[in-house]
């Protein structure tokens, strides 16, 4: 690791800076990376850890969000974007290979949240690349009037996990189509997203670089050593992902109960399943009761019906 540009930035909550280790994670599977975050938070009970990671196209919702209220699942289908629920609060974010995620695990400070503590070194790093960025809306980093990083945290005992996105060279068209438009026709008790205009970092750089070099630069600026999960740890992380982050029950089924009323269609759902559904037009779509709420499941149940596309549009768009 090249330490030539190492800054004096530290995430330490104490007066004495603590060496931070870079956790190497080449997985592009968000379920693995979200599971790795939870593993680091609960199993690495001392020291400071930074994991940089990227994902195949996907949308990651907050722990207590209603996926149906925040995300266009038909657009997810179109862009082949997976849907995953993370372990922190806040709203939904879009990931692809042009977005760099960072996860920091450390001792918690005296207060929560600790956005200033974790975001200031990131802002300082961006400044070293010629980007005039600032913390805004408590937990976001903006450059000009555009958001380039969204952040959230989870606290367990004396440890905190802080994570965020860094839009570097992401597909902002896909981001805008999949997220960012709360579906007001859905009524539920859930945490709403707070969409803002967004921008990529790459066009703002003084000197252009690929995302790999951007990631290396952050690691060099903040970390003193590297760590790779052992085979046993990787197996444990994958096991957790199988039991949680790769399951329908976690990603969709934990959405709060909700009702949807639009275009003559009335629907109630619980645990991501349709409990009741009626239409003003009198079409009998009772076959959808008990159906999992995804476009593909609904399409399958209505495969022989001319109204399928219209019903899917009303439910998911």
């Amino acid at each position, binding site marked *: 690791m090249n330490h030539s540009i190492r800054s004096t930035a530290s995430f330490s909550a104490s007066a004495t800076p603590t060496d931070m280790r870079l956790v190497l994670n080449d997985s592009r599977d968000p379920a693995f990376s979200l599971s790795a975050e939870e593993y680091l938070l609960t199993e690495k009970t001392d020291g400071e850890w930074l994991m940089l990671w990227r994902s195949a196209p996907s949308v990651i919702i907050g722990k*207590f969000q209603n996926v149906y209220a925040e995300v266009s699942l038909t657009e997810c289908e179109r862009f082949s974007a997976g849907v995953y629920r993370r372990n922190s609060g806040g*709203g939904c974010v879009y990931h692809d290979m042009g977005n760099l995620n960072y996860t920091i695990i450390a001792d918690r400070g005296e207060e929560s949240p600790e956005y200033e503590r974790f975001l200031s070194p990131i802002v300082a790093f961006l400044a070293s690349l010629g980007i005039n960025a600032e913390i805004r809306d*408590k937990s976001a980093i903006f450059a000009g009037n555009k958001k380039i990083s969204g952040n959230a945290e989870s606290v367990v005992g004396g440890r905190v996990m802080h994570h965020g996105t860094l839009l570097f060279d992401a597909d902002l068209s896909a981001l805008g189509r999949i997220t960012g438009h709360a579906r007001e026709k859905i009524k539920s*008790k859930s945490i709403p997203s707070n969409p803002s205009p967004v921008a990529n970092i790459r066009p703002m750089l003084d000197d252009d670089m690929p995302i790999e070099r951007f990631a290396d630069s952050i690691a060099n600026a903040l970390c003193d050593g590297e760590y790779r999960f052992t085979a046993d740890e990787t197996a444990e992380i994958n096991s957790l992902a199988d039991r949680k982050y790769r399951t329908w029950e976690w990603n969709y089924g934990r959405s709060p109960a909700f009702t949807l009323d639009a275009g003559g269609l009335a629907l109630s759902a619980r645990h991501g399943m349709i409990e009741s559904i009626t239409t003003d037009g009198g079409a009998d779509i009772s076959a959808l009761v008990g159906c999992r709420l995804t476009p593909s499941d609904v399409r399958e149940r209505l495969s022989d019906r001319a109204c399928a596309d219209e019903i899917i549009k009303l439910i998911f768009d």
Partner: protein
Amino acid sequence: MIDVKMPSLKEGMESGILCEWTIDAGDNVKRGDVIAEIEVDKVINRIEAAYDMKIVELCAEEGDEVKVGTIIARAESNEH
């Protein structure tokens, strides 16, 4: 009777969203057991039982925004 209240996690905190009960009324819990999760400013925090106790009543629903100091559950002590 023990009143379990919405805690203040930071100076100036006015309320938090009670996102999940991890226990039910009637459950016996040990000191330190997680009984609920709350979200404040995009941070998930766990509320832990301060005593060995039996949960008698849940006074807030999942998804409710609850002011700091408001009673969210009532319990009976199991400590002797």
